[in-house]
């Protein structure tokens, strides 16, 4: 009887299997098609930037094939890397980003822990509220914020505008809500019994957070870190509005304001600066991606 069922089932299963794998093959083909299109679409600008960065100003303005370098030169790179001004921008960017990432994590992780685990009155509403603040675009905020800082400066004498550290207040308004939201998601996926076990083992809330939640939710923490770093590295509007002196500028604004003089665009250096500026996030991705392994919670519980 058993053999009969197997015999009967076998042909149908093969047919089904075949059709399924044909579906899969088509799905794969389409995925590759779109992936290639996306890759071309997104890689073209950096490649063009790279090509341009190897050209001299004369070659850029000459009417040659823009996709080919006839006289490659590193003068744009040496020019920028020996320019104190450019190094200053780079340094400002790095300092701001590192501080912002630190501040963001120090606020977002405990906030997410509290919102996801300590059930207090209104915690659910607050969690949604946190996310909603992220949806307000900075274009809507920069004028009122500028006014606020100006007033604060008038009243207290603490000068915030045109100081790089004003960005340490501004960027977290973008990064904290989103990172909190990411971390709430990760913390929520940790089974409730895990913190109960920790509490019974004698851990305080703080120890539960640092010794259980943070290690278990490490992939989420890394995702949030990458996000916070990317946002603060690439942020353009706030530094453009709030900082003006060249020694206070971060890189995106610095490149624009110093390499464009009137209607003279120093394209070679702009492209080089942009490429060099893109390097740190890339390096950070490469490093952290190794740790960004999902499924760290596997084995905690049955499921």
């Amino acid at each position, binding site marked *: 009887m058993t053999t009969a069922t197997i015999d009967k089932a076998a042909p149908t299963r093969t047919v089904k299997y075949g059709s399924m794998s044909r579906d899969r093959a088509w799905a794969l083909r389409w995925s590759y098609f779109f992936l290639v299109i996306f890759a071309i679409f997104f890689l073209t600008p950096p490649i063009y930037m790279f090509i341009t960065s190897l050209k001299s100003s004369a070659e850029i303005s000459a009417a040659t094939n823009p996709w080919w370098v006839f006289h490659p030169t590193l003068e744009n790179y040496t020019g920028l890397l020996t320019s104190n001004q450019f190094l200053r921008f780079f340094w400002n960017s790095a300092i701001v980003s590192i501080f912002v990432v630190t501040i963001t994590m120090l606020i977002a992780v405990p906030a997410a822990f509290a919102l996801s685990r300590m059930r207090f009155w209104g915690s659910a509403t607050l969690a949604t509220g946190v996310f909603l603040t992220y949806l307000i675009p900075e274009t809507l905020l920069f004028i009122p914020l500028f006014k606020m800082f100006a007033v604060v400066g008038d009243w207290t004498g603490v000068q915030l505008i045109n100081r790089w550290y004003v960005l340490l207040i501004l960027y977290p308004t973008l990064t904290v809500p989103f990172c909190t939201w990411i971390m709430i998601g990760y913390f929520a996926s940790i*089974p409730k*019994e*895990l913190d*109960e*076990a*920790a*509490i*019974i*083992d*004698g*851990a305080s809330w703080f*120890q539960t957070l640092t*010794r*259980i939640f943070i*290690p*278990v939710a*490490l992939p989420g923490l890394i995702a949030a870190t990458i996000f916070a770093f990317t946002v603060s590295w690439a942020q353009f509007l706030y530094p453009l509005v709030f900082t003006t002196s060249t020694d206070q500028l971060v890189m995106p604004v610095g490149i624009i304001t110093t390499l464009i003089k009137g209607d003279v665009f120093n394209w070679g250096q702009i492209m080089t600066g942009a490429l060099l500026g893109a390097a740190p996030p890339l390096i950070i991705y490469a490093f952290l991606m190794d740790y960004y392994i999902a499924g*760290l*919670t*596997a*084995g*905690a*519980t*049955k*499921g």
Partner: protein
Amino acid sequence: MADVTLRKVVKRYDEVEAVRGIDLDIADHEFVVLVGPSGCGKSTTLRMIAGLEDISDGDIMIGGDVVNDVPPKDRDIAMVFQNYALYPHMTVAENMSFGLRLKRYPKAEIKSRVDEAARMLDIVELVDRKPKQLSGGQRQRVAMGRAIVRNPKVFLFDEPLSNLDAKLRVQMRIEIKKVHQKVRTTTVYVTHDQVEAMTLADRVVVMNHGRIEQIGTPNELYHKPATKFVASFIGSPAMNFVPCRLEDLAGKLHVRLTDRIAFPLPPARAARYQGIPRTDKLLLGLRPEHITEAKPHAEPGVEAFDAVLDVTEPMGMETLIYFTLEGAQVCGRVNPNAGAQDGAPLRLAVDLNNMHLLNEVTGVVL
């Protein structure tokens, strides 16, 4: 080690009363099992003892001290969860020692305790593995090890075996019993499996709808259930209930099941049930093992009758038979050689010395 006492403990969640006033005294070293159907409030009771849930009303005492407002970590209890709740980023040894490390025990002491627990649970070669490299049964052992190394006053288990397959469950059940015999820590164990309850417990607490139905040793519950709920919950296959009335026939008290079937009660039973009004609607409770094939020489109190079997289930060492009496399905256990066949008549005997009589309306065993 310590005793645990619950005094009129109540738990309310907004609208629902999950636990409705529980009184329970658990002696030092005792192994008490809370058993009952899903949603009857077992876990809630256990979690209140642990301190993971606030008590809405009443008192909980551990070792004589009221712990109503004592946080879990200061109650000196250890808990084993249904899904193990191992810390996934720590090795087995780290999992087991986490509590001790938080309390800053000396390293040597921690090591010796972990080693001892690992030896007791037979997981010595696993101590450097992470939870995800363990099987379900091994994880369960680690979870128990985490409780043992703490050497707490009370162990709390919440359905620790329900995620394991049947065979492993039996094995771990024995393991838990062995551990308890060794460490003798007061234990409260929650399960919905009455076999687990019967085999593990010194005393079983049967719960239903947030109340305690009965407390007793496994044998007491089995042989002297207080209510229909307990009678039907404990034992497998479950006790049979057949509608009946009491009747005086020829000067002797009889229990009448159908127009044709009425059994004379043995003297001890007759004396006990004498005062019950003859018009009361009653249930005759009989365990399957007290319905067998009729023997040639009937013992006192064993009465024979004929039945037509609906279904038979050969189990090897015995055959389960099912037939219908007064609309109630009745299960009996007969010798495999008794000749029981589907749809065939068979002469059966009931052992009325082990009968129960219940009030059909209140479900109370009389």
